[in-house]
């Protein structure tokens, strides 16, 4: 399983507001596809999917503030 959090952005953000989810739970996703855009201390940034598979679970909705230690979602990765 690939876990996605604010750490996926490659910089330590204490928190961010989820603006837009681009896919829903159960959707297929390829590595590099945009998953979610967030409003951060750097403005609007996007997290791309690190893996190919299925978006298994989304933990926070649009408009919710997430902190650096919280998971945004998990991706059930396809077998190589």
């Amino acid at each position, binding site marked *: 399983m690939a876990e996605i959090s604010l750490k996926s952005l490659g910089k330590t953000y204490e928190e961010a507001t989820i603006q837009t989810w681009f896919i829903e739970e159960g*959707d297929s*996703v390829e590595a590099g596809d945009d998953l979610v855009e967030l409003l951060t201390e750097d403005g609007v940034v996007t997290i791309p999917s690190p893996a190919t598979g299925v978006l298994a679970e989304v933990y926070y909705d649009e408009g919710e503030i997430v902190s650096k230690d919280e998971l945004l979602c998990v991706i059930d990765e396809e077998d190589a």
Partner: protein
Amino acid sequence: MTTAIRPRLPGWLRRTLPQPTTEETHEILGRYGLNTVCESALCPNRSECYSRSTATFMILGNTCTRRCGFCAIETGKAETVMTDEPERVAMAAQELGLRYIVVTSVARDDLEDEGAGHFAATIRALRQAIPEGQIEVLTPDFHARVECLQIVTDAKPEVFNHNVETIRRLQRLVRPQADYHRSLRVLAAVKALDASITTKSGIMLGLGENEEEVLQTAADLRAVGCDILTLGQYLSPSKEHLPVVAFKSPAEFEALAGKIRPMGFRHVFAGPYVRSSYHAGEIFHHAHTSES
């Protein structure tokens, strides 16, 4: 590949992942136990500003006695006023190497002077620590009480900023405990108390206003002698806050600014990520060294 199920935010709001470091500014602010509106209000520019060793200090605690629909600052019971805060702000500003310092606060309707004395003490502490510095205050409305405003103006900040935030029609929705005409009276009163102080105000776009209403607000601000105007895009801090009604493009911001500039402001600063304290020092110097 799946397609997006909801529209993206406009492309002009997207930023590439940043590189500059902000740890030093964070460390200094933390060491002096200071709040910033940058962090408390979730400003999308804070990384850029922190990386340039600048921040807008927020005094009088981290809890506001009002509840505005656009603002991410915590609301509720006010905190104890820390009498050493002015000195800590001054020391932090000195260590950050600031020469243009912006100080704002939460609303303190619980205090007899609504925090005016604390603003003045902070200005004086900054003057002592950084004699060559220039100071901008971004204040609540003090209920337009002249006795409170005079406490601040007597400390002679270079800039007195008070935001109307939105057009008259949306005031009750956006800032239910404030008042459009009261805010205009604040700016008028500051000019009457000390005409040498530059006054400044800001409007957020994207809450449902139309162009005519924005132009009227600018005209109303100019009528009370407002010198500098900022216009920025409202971005909703969370689903608990007012939603964004519209996104204005950089071209729309610039077109609007073009219609406002002939009104006679010293400077109009407009753009999606513009905020009332963003690049405040540069704006002040531009306003006083060239035509806007």
